[in-house]
């Protein structure tokens, strides 16, 4: 029996040590393997995208009451674009700034801040969820993206809307993209106002995207140009967004 006990203890120890020794480097190696990433690890995102679209195309994100709002709404990502052109617009309070909307559209157009403010506005108090895990509730005011897209009239083959931004990470300008379901969702707005004031620079002035059923990195700030495309393959590194291309974050950030 004594012999047996020792062998049991040894067995457990060996099992434990080899288990963790195999699992961790194994997971690290698999994490670094592009094939494993493409074939296995991206399946969660693909399933989530399909299932969440099946659950409903247009349910609204929860809208909160003014008393539910975060006392302070932190900023993150870039809080002050370095580009000289942006700095000029900032100095002139975006008086001659224009939002260019083009790509796979019938009537490319550009909108001044005044043009956008003249359009029917939508205000919503919603929760912003960062991929890191924190949340903040704030009030956003802007023009529904769908109204802008209706003005420029999408080509029939347009499938994604891409946002090109003024801020950059190590020389690469920020960009993000969403599908047409989210683009025409009633709560998807180009916000020029926050918490009943102008949109602060730290939160993306003059205009940022609010796409309320996805995580924070999809909410492109400092939007300069909007482009309708058939496919994301020609956008940046082909995955549809700055963090998607540079760090392997999921394109669909609904979860």
């Amino acid at each position, binding site marked *: *029996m*004594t012999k047996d006990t020792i062998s*049991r203890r040894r*067995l*457990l120890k060996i099992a434990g040590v080899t288990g*963790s020794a195999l*699992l*961790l*480097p194994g*997971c*690290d190696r698999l*994490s670094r393997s592009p094939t494993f*990433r493409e074939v*296995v*690890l*991206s*399946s*969660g*995102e693909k*399933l*989530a995208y399909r299932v*969440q679209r099946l*659950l*409903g195309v247009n*349910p*609204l*994100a*929860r809208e*909160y009451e003014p008393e*539910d709002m*975060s*006392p*302070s*709404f*932190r900023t993150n990502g870039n809080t002050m674009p370095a580009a000289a052109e942006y700095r000029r617009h900032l100095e002139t309070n975006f008086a001659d700034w224009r939002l260019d909307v083009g790509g796979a559209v019938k009537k490319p157009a550009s909108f001044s801040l005044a043009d956008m403010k003249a359009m029917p506005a939508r205000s919503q108090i919603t*929760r912003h*969820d*960062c*991929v*890191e*895990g*924190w*949340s*903040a*509730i704030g009030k956003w005011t802007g023009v529904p993206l769908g109204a802008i897209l209706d003005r420029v009239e999408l080509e029939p083959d347009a499938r994604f809307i891409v946002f090109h931004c003024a801020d950059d990470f190590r020389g690469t300008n920020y960009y993000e993209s969403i599908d047409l379901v989210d683009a025409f969702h009633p709560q998807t707005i180009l916000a020029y106002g926050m918490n009943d004031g102008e949109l602060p620079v730290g939160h993306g002035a003059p205009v940022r995207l609010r796409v*309320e*059923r*996805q*995580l924070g990195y999809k909410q492109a700030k400092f939007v300069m140009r909007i482009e309708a495309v058939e496919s994301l393959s020609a956008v940046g590194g082909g995955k549809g967004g700055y*963090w998607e291309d540079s*760090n*392997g*974050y*999921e394109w669909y950030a*609904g*979860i």
Partner: protein
Amino acid sequence: MTMTTIDNTDVSLPEGGLVYRHRLSTRIWHWINALTLLIMLMSGLMIFNAHPRLYWGDYGANADPAWLEIGSGGGEGYLRIGSLTVETTGVLGLWHDGNGTLRSRAFPGWATIPSYYSLSMGRLWHLTFAWVFALGIVAYGVWSWLNRHIERDLLPSKTEIHPSHIWDDVKKHARLDFPKGEAALNYNILQKLAYLGVLGVLIPVAILTGLTMSPAMNASWPWLLDIFGGRQSARSIHFIVAWLLVGFFLVHIAMVVLAGPLNEIRSMITGRYRLPPENAEVKAEEKDA
């Protein structure tokens, strides 16, 4: 050697012989769960590392009060829960990685997937294996309900659920007096309650609080926010439930070790289990050894 299954109770069982206790489907499900739960825990700790603070309510960020925080300051790592602060240098908040580099992340590299900091990779692992885990538990639930495994083996009988019976079983466990002979083929009441608590409460709550953190799920199923009291509460509950599952795992392993690890592990690999002998002399012999 006579083989019998757990539901054929009329067949006379060989004393100390091998019986067929776990079906192949049960065994496969058990080991997939073991691996998946470990992946979920370790990739979950990586996700926690991205923002090692927990809140109650709908919102919560750096300026808001956190009820739990893992961090570092002044060359020391710490875990803070409410007003209690524990120094955790070397394990939590501040630790050396495999290359000897000092890191100021919450959970150490040996506990996370991947071992190096990568929120995006942690999320890919977590959100992919969440499907394996959730679909596995749903399939198990449906299957076990249809074949009456839940009713027959897991739900306690009226006599079992009586406080005096439960107390009796608690005392037996405390004396490490485990069921012998045929009685070892049935789950005892504490075992039933533990399994029901894990399968019926902890795992469903883990899955639902996980879904509550999804902004798209919040739009489709807003009741999730109501039952858990907001997204940040759901995140806190998710974290607590993960550690309760770790607690279950530790007790589970302790019980396997105390009840005879080789026999128990064999029964979960081959399905065959040797009945613990009822004979008192054999028991005495074991004690002497």
